[in-house]
């Protein structure tokens, strides 16, 4: 009798653990499966939508609570460099792009915990009102832990490994069509060797 009771307790506990773990996995490992991909950028058009499915809604609630629906704004996320490696504070990146067919855009750097990196550089974002294109039609921003001589700087100081970028596109025009070519391109300039 005692053995049966113990077996039921173990079965229920195992079920709870398995169910919890699979839900956690769906909200972490499975995130990319609910997004459209444009090069290294990912987009979930169902963010904030009343038509979002339960998984999309849960993922957005975890990583982007209170995001606007795609009618108002689009949120693109980038978590890996051009080699597929997680973004790291020990690397210097160049972000370059053309002006987007939208009213306003910004790129913001978030640490792995989805909050701004803990530094007092006040360089967590660049936006369309503060950058201008060069002769080649591209605006550029430097992503690094120190500003150096860069004009448009996103500070990765204390962002450690696994930080991400969010591109916000507000009031996109009718002809705004996300594509790998249209969205800003990230290039790794250098990485410090592990000591």
């Amino acid at each position, binding site marked *: 009798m005692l053995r049966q009771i113990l077996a039921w307790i173990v079965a229920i506990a195992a079920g709870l653990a398995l169910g919890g773990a699979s839900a956690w996995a769906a909200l972490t490992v499975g995130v990319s499966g609910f997004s459209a991909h444009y090069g290294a950028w990912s987009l979930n058009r169902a963010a904030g939508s009343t038509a979002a499915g339960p998984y999309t809604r849960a993922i957005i609630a*975890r990583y982007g609570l*209170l995001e606007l629906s795609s009618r108002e704004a689009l949120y693109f996320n980038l978590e890996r460099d051009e080699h597929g490696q997680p973004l790291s504070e020990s690397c210097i990146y160049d972000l370059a792009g053309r002006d987007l067919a939208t009213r306003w855009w*910004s790129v913001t750097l978030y640490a792995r915990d989805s909050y701004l990196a803990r530094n*007092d550089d006040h360089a967590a974002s660049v936006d369309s009102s503060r950058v201008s294109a060069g002769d080649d039609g591209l605006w550029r921003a430097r992503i690094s832990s120190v500003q150096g001589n860069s004009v448009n700087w996103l500070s990765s100081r204390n962002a450690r490994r696994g930080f991400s970028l969010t591109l916000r596109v507000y009031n996109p025009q009718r002809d705004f069509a996300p594509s790998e070519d249209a969205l800003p391109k990230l290039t790794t300039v250098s990485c410090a060797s592990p000591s």
Partner: protein
Amino acid sequence: MSGWGKYIVAALLVAVVTHIVAIFAVPNVLMNVALQRLGGGHYNAWHLGDRVTAASRTIVRPSPDFAYSACPYDLATGPVRIHVAPWNDYWSLSLYANNSDNFYVLDDREARDGADILLIRGGSPPPDHPTATVVESPSARGIALIRRLAPTPDAYAGAAHVAPNDICASAAR
């Protein structure tokens, strides 16, 4: 069914139910956390957030380029009136149900001179002579959020100057 089979089936059933409950519960749980963090347990009043910095830990992925005002609303005692004072750059009013759905958005292109909303519970009868746009909320509680584009300290100071003119208050008689 005999032996270990019934225990394995039971474990799988519990796992499926737990998985589904967890997925459906996450948005509501996180919204309840947000309601507490943004309003401190108080409803139907705007709370202007400090300028977003590295110390901001209220809501994930905040934008440092916006001045945020949040009003956790509660329609239990009746409609809530929401007024948004105009701003000289992009602004929007967005309404979120308690499952995190963004069920309403209005921005300055549609309401250059600000916005007046009467928020009522979905399915309840609208007022006879509404003096504002009537919007139905799918849930009794939720969050109204104003975003004012303010990418510089000066712009944020300007938004903070305008924000006291916003209204979020019970319209119940």
